[in-house]
C-alpha cells in the first residue's frame, strides 16, 4: 500500500493571525466551518488540527445560542 502524501495543513498553523478570529462575535468567519445545512464540518475534512477544532466547536455553539448562526438551515430564508 503506497501512502499518499496529500496531507492537509491546518489553516491556523499556517497563519497564526487567524486564531484571534475564533470568536463567536466573528460569526462571518465561523461560517466557513459549517455546511449549508448548519452542521459543523469535521476537522479531517477541513484540515483543522484538533486543538483549534475544539475551539471552533465551542465558539460555533455559542454563536448558535445567540442566533448569530443557525442550528439547522431554514428553508424559508
Amino acid at each position, binding site marked *: 500500500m503506497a501512502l499518499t502524501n496529500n496531507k492537509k495543513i491546518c489553516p491556523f498553523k499556517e497563519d497564526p493571525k487567524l486564531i484571534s478570529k475564533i470568536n463567536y*462575535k466573528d460569526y462571518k468567519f465561523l461560517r466557513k466551518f459549517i455546511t449549508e445545512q448548519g452542521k459543523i464540518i469535521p476537522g479531517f475534512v477541513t484540515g483543522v488540527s484538533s486543538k483549534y477544532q475544539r475551539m471552533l466547536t465551542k465558539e460555533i455553539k455559542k454563536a448558535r445560542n445567540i442566533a448569530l448562526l443557525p*442550528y439547522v438551515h*431554514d428553508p424559508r430564508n
Partner: protein
Amino acid sequence: MNYYETLYIVHPALESGRLKDIIISIQGMFESKDIKVLCTDYWGKKKLAYLIDKQQYGSYVLVQLQSNGDNINKINTELEHNPDVLSYLTSRIDESNLIKDSRSLDDQILGSKSSESENKSTEAAKVESSSSDSKEDSSDPEPKEESSGSDSKEEPSDSDSSEVSSDEEVSDSDNDNEELTSEDKDGADE
C-alpha cells in the same frame, strides 16, 4: 477581578428612544449588583438565524463587565425574566479582549446607520479591488451608497428611522447573496 461580556438581543419593535431606556435600565441593574460596566457596544438591528418569540429581527447589544464573579448568575436570571430581552449570552473574557475606544450610546444608536453604510461602502470597495468583476457588478454598489447617503440626511426629520435601517440591512444582506449568485451565473454563462 474577572472580566465578562454579555451579548443580549433587545426586542426589535422598540424604537431608538425606548431602546436607550432599556439599555440604561439594564446597565443600572448590573451596577446595583456590584458589577462594573466597562463599555457598551450597540451592534444594530440584525436578522436572527432562527425565530425567537416569533421575531425575525433583533437589536444586539454587547456589554463588557468587571466583577469578582459572585453575581454573574443573578444577572442571567434578571435577563431571563426581562420581557424585552429575547436572548442573552454571558461569557468570560481575557483582559486583552476589552474594547478600548467606546463611543457614547446616543452616537451608537443614532449613528449606527450612517457608520454601517460607510462600512458597507468600504467593504464593497474592497470586494471591487480584490476581485476582477465585470462592470455590471461594480455598478451595483454605487446607487446603494447614494441611496443610503440620502437616507442618512433625511433621518432627523423621519420618525420611522428604525424601520429604514432594518430595510437597508435586509437589502444589503440580500445583495451580498445576489452578488455571489450573479458571479456564479456569470461563470455558468461563460
